[in-house]
């Protein structure tokens, strides 16, 4: 195993982990933004907004991730290419496939995040909104200072599993050709004829990462519970 790592595969794995990790973290953040946005939209007075959000979450939780990723990836890719062509006026400008890839995982994960935040939102009593208004807070202030911190405490344990899902979701991007951990492991397995070693390394990376993430999230949960006690 060390033999392979010395032959330059170790470097490849480090780069691939950086790719997987950064795609996962960007998609995670974007999906949370989508989740909060969709929750606000669903609770607004805009007509049909709630129905549209419900349709989005239902559809995206019912379809296979890889199918959605392929659909969004190709749509976003052609949209971005034509946008770049329109803006720069040249036809040879190209955008890295990572951009549509990140967009596709974010939109897929956004459906899960929306479900989480909608459940958290439903737990906040109407009195909290009214109290914010009564104290003279603007809509944005009451949202940022009163409502979201309470939702944060409620959804934190679920955000931990959403984070693990987003790390695992990036593995699907290897099918599109993004050089993530799974892609590098496949390439290594094929070119050296040692699938056990290469897939084993990839699996070990994910397991170590899962344990580290669960540590971080249990620390965050402990901290949020302590601050809750202080109130």
């Amino acid at each position, binding site marked *: 195993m060390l033999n392979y790592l010395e032959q330059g595969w170790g470097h490849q794995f480090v780069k691939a982990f950086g790719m997987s990790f950064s795609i996962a973290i960007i998609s995670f953040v974007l999906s949370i933004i989508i989740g909060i946005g969709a929750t606000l939209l669903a609770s607004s007075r805009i007509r049909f907004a709630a129905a549209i959000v419900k349709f989005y979450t239902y*559809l995206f*939780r*019912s*379809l*296979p*991730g*890889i*199918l*959605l990723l*392929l*659909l969004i990836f*190709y749509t976003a890719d052609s949209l971005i290419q034509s946008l770049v062509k329109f803006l720069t006026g040249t036809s040879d400008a190209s955008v890295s496939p990572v951009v549509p890839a990140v967009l596709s995982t974010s939109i897929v994960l956004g459906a899960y995040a929306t479900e989480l935040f909608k459940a958290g939102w439903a737990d906040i009593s109407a009195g909290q909104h009214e109290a914010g208004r009564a104290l003279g807070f603007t809509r944005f202030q009451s949202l940022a200072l009163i409502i979201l911190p309470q939702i944060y405490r409620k959804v934190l344990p679920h955000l931990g599993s959403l984070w*693990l899902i987003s790390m*695992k979701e990036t*593995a*699907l991007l*290897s*099918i599109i050709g993004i050089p993530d951990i*799974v892609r590098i*492991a*496949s390439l290594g*397995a094929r070119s050296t004829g040692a*699938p*056990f070693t290469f*897939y*084993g390394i*990839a*699996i070990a990376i*994910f*397991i170590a*990462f*899962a*344990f580290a993430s*669960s540590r971080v999230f249990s620390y965050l949960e402990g901290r949020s519970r302590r601050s809750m006690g202080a109130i």
Partner: protein
Amino acid sequence: MELMIAYTREILGGLSTTLSLFLVSLVIGFILAAAMAFIQIRFPGHISKSVWNLMFCIRGVPMLLVLYIIYYGLPLLPIVRETFLWAVFSSPFWCTIICLAIVEMAFTSEIMRGAYFQTPKEQIEAARSLGLNGFQTFRAAIFPAMIRNGFAAYTTEVILLCKSTALAFTVTVMDVMGFANEIRSRTLDIYEPLLIAGFIYLCITITTRLALSWIFSLISVAGSARAEAL
């Protein structure tokens, strides 16, 4: 339009493969999960802890990697290649089933374990004090409570399993996604085959949700009727 019909017909050719992947791994995964949850509940201490850690590890690994190591990795072992196991591991279909069942086991055993420990202690003690033995206690007090506590999570898990079957095409299984992908790479039409496949998956998941809620209503009604009779 004619093209759509031709595509639909071709993609529907994979429907039976998708359904059998889904149902066979659902049953095997459920049995394995029940065994793992039983071990964790019955043997507290080191055994329980190590089984839980193993399940946690499986839950942390992408299914794609589990599938690849089973399909590409295991056939390298002499014990797999030279014994009857080769009949199983040489078929991509059965490799996918094993992979789906293992992943399903890891998630479902945690749901079962959680549902078991949510059962109120008083209920178990009450059943015990009525003179019921271990199995009777399980049937009358613990199992109905587990169903009530765990059914929603289990429904989500079954839908996830159904969606995961779509990864089978990466190891050359020709299921719904496999045919859609084959059309995609042959004709370079992206949207038609994928949307048709999506519609088929939507039908499967909606049917699964309806079937599960029907089963739940059957079980829970039967449970409350028995409670009233008691």
